[in-house]
């Protein structure tokens, strides 16, 4: 019998090292994971709260909204409304996992297995993260962002910077490229380029140019509508990108701030698309590692029971009529699907062979899973791998709520032969960010006229924008654009449902 990793609940740094080594052996040898180098940091509850309020990142630029987050979390934590997460893990290389000092030795093992190997593998191998994030560069980039914002505050005043950042934050969810562009984001290179850009601007700055009279503008019809739209890259759904490139009166530093917010939004974009998969992967990995360690006798029965308690809490899925229900728990759904895939691969039923001919009975569990982890996001993952058995097991059903329908909410499909595919499709849709977020794009700018910016919101299923919020966001947008902005909500038949027009607020003295 091998030696125990620890006894009881206490741990010290040697224990952590032993635990990590043991987890690593299982992760590499048995599961064949491929991870970034790990960095494990032990922090206090207060530091955990700190990390919460800067979206989990170890360093971030200063902004009041993070203070608001902190105050909010702290208040609910103090009142006991909220427990703290056991861990926070950062998609960077090295992959940083924060562990709370309050955790017991068992919990630390769980967390290391979960974060340092599960999440880490997912970050390194999933195609979305590969495509959109630069794990090597992110920390340096955040450091650059932090310093840049600080410099701007010194130069242009805190209020001015805050105003720009507020506006950028309001548009953050629409500052994302949803489809891969020409090349991968290289944040280090980006940072260098930002430096060069600034330097160039300073070098070529010549105050005289301001006084040179502007030539007569081109005739109004000179540029055709099509050409203009093409020049501006319209239609454009990345509002921040559009403003950064085309807003006429932004100062260079304001454009740089928009770029920073946009890059950060882009960095987090894959995470929002892979919640189920990411947590499912990490949970599956920690479950495998913990079970393995227990079988090897490196964790005592008591500690294993403690682990099972936590694990069960994490993957608990209340039913829809349970007061605790608040949608699907990504941990529960993800873990259940991973286990289901394992079952299909090792001991498939006839139904599974029919539904999943590619993987049923293939017997190479880890091979299949690694492939799944690398090549899917939540929406495609569910659309592809949610099995009839799991739908029956979770008793899934699909409701259709049409406000026009007097009779009430219709049960459209249930977990039966007729319903499987529909339930699965609907659940997959629910996890499609492209579908959840409002579809808004810049369609035109009236450059020769009053320079009004025209946006369209393509209304899907009658869901229009919340009025108060929309007006406020548009106000921010108009302030950056410095001319009128109009947002038109159109339905699938191009019928105009509603139009917002917002004028910019006058800019205060600083220009």
């Amino acid at each position, binding site marked *: 019998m091998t030696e125990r990793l620890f006894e009881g609940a206490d741990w010290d740094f040697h224990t952590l090292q032993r635990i990590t080594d043991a987890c690593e052996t299982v992760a590499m040898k048995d599961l064949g994971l491929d991870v970034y*180098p790990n960095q494990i940091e*032990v922090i206090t509850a207060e530091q955990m709260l700190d990390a919460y309020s800067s979206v989990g990142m170890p360093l971030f630029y200063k902004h*009041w909204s993070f*203070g608001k987050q902190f105050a909010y979390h702290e208040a609910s934590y103090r009142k006991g409304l909220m427990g703290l997460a056991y861990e926070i893990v950062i998609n960077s290389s090295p992959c940083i996992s924060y562990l709370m000092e309050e955790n017991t030795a068992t919990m630390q093992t769980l967390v290391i297995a979960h974060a340092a190997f599960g999440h880490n593998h997912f970050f390194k191998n999933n195609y979305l993260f590969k495509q959109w994030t630069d794990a090597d560069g992110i920390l340096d980039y955040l450091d650059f962002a932090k310093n840049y914002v600080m410099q701007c505050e010194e130069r242009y005043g805190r209020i001015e910077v805050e105003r720009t950042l507020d506006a950028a934050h*309001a548009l953050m969810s629409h500052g994302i490229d949803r489809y891969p562009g020409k090349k991968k984001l290289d944040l280090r290179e980006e940072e260098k380029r930002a430096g060069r850009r600034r330097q160039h601007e300073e070098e070529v700055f010549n105050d005289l140019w301001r006084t040179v009279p502007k030539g007569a503008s081109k005739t109004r019809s000179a540029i055709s509508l099509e050409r203009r739209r093409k020049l501006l890259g319209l239609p454009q759904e990345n509002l921040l990108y559009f403003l950064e490139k085309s807003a006429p009166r932004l100062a260079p530093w304001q454009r740089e701030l928009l770029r920073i917010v946009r890059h950060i939004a882009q960095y987090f974009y894959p995470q929002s698309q892979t919640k189920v998969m990411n947590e499912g992967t990490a949970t599956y990995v920690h479950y495998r590692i913990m079970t393995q360690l227990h079988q090897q006798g490196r964790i005592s029965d008591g500690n294993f029971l403690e682990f099972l308690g936590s694990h069960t809490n994490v993957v608990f899925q209340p039913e*829809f009529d349970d007061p605790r229900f608040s949608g699907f728990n990504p941990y529960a759904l993800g873990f259940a699907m991973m286990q289901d895939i394992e079952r299909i691969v090792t001991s498939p039923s006839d139904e599974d062979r029919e539904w999943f001919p590619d993987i049923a009975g293939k017997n190479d569990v880890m091979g299949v899973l690694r492939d799944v982890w690398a090549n899917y996001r939540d929406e495609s993952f569910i659309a592809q791998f949610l099995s009839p058995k799991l739908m029956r097991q979770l008793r899934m059903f699909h409701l259709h709520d049409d406000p026009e329908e007097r009779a009430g909410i219709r049960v459209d499909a249930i977990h039966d032969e007729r319903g499987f595919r529909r339930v699965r499709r609907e659940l997959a849709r629910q996890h499609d960010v492209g579908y959840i977020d409002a579809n808004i794009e810049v369609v035109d700018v009236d450059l020769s006229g009053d320079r009004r910016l025209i946006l369209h*919101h393509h209304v899907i299923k009658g869901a229009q924008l919340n009025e108060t919020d929309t007006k406020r966001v548009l106000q921010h947008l108009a302030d950056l654009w410095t001319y009128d902005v109009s947002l038109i909500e159109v339905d699938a038949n191009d019928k105009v449902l509603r139009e917002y027009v917002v004028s910019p607020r006058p800019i205060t003295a600083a220009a």
Partner: protein
Amino acid sequence: MHIIDRRLNPGGKSLENRQRFLRRAKSLVQGAVKKTSQERDIKDVLEGGEVTIPLDGMHEPRFRREGGTRDMVLPGNKKFIEGDYLQRSGQGSAKNSGPGEGDGEDAFRFVLSRDEFVDLFLDDLELPDLAKRKVAQTESEGIQRAGYTTSGSPANISVSRTVRRALARRIALKRPSKEEIEELEAAIAACTDDDERVVLLAQLEKLKAKTKRIPFIDPLDIRYRRFETVPKPVAQAVMFCLMDVSGSMSEHMKDLAKRFYMLLYVFLKRRYKHVDIVFIRHTDRAEEVDEQTFFYGPASGGTLVSSALQAMHEIVRERFNPSDWNIYAAQASDGDNSYSDGELTGLLLTDKILPVCQFFAYLEVGESGGSAFDLSDSSLWTLYERLRNGGAPLSMRKVSERSEIFPVFHDLFQRRDTAQEKAAP
């Protein structure tokens, strides 16, 4: 593989952000603080605590979709089959749990530390005429002897202490004294025997060598006088609490007065290192009492306001030199005074009290919801009003409800425009 202990890293990384948030939310928080403070006891209020601010002002807007037809997949079907209808109102749980349903963040609870709370509360308050005594704001440093040290400037050498140590060392190391040597020399001079003489000479040599080895004063002996600078609080204030405790003052009125005094105390505490409080209660005669007696001691009798002023005047003369102390007085009364006392009161105030006071506040307290209170001005009120119109630096307010104390206090100590309110020196 790195394992790093970050627990000792400086915490409070969010402090800066929190401060930015507070700064931004200041007017909101300030409003909330005032509102909260009206509802709570003063003691609790000054403990800081939780305030609720509307999230609206701090809201960060996003484009959000709402309404329309909704589709959702839920777990836990027990009895439904395809084509069933669920009642909207009855089956609330199913309805409320759809994706994208707004989370109800309507108001924002915010915990303020005690200091933050008091700061915000007192933020736009200012002691009137603070500039009158500039000395009140500067703090002088006094110098105080603080024993001896082995290093220092030659000017500070303590001769007696040095010599004492030298002597002790000489004794301890058995340095031969002058007398010893003289005695030996005398013995040598008187000595006749050559052999003995050689021995004595050798002894003398030895003693002389020892004298050389052990100096009279060694650098080790030197001691310097040490001085320490101690902050000397010149910024000090005394607060006189004057209260009529005659039978007409009800518990409610005393409670109002107490609240006012407590606020004043907290306020002064913020500005001064050291605040003294003098409690003077009076009926037809005045006495200085402790706090307990002041607020809770039974007393009864007629009312002579001048007695309290006289007592205050005497105490100031005895203990609080106006050039060293900033003097504040707050008088609480229901406004009754003997008719005959009016003139004396006025004289005392204008001649003795007001010239030495930074601020004199008169608080007329009334019964809760008192209707008679509004009818006519009391004799004291009329008198003070006359004085004030004559240019005396008096502030006066009427209070009858607990919740009015804070606003009135605020009002009295509002930061003033220097132009206005500087009528009389």
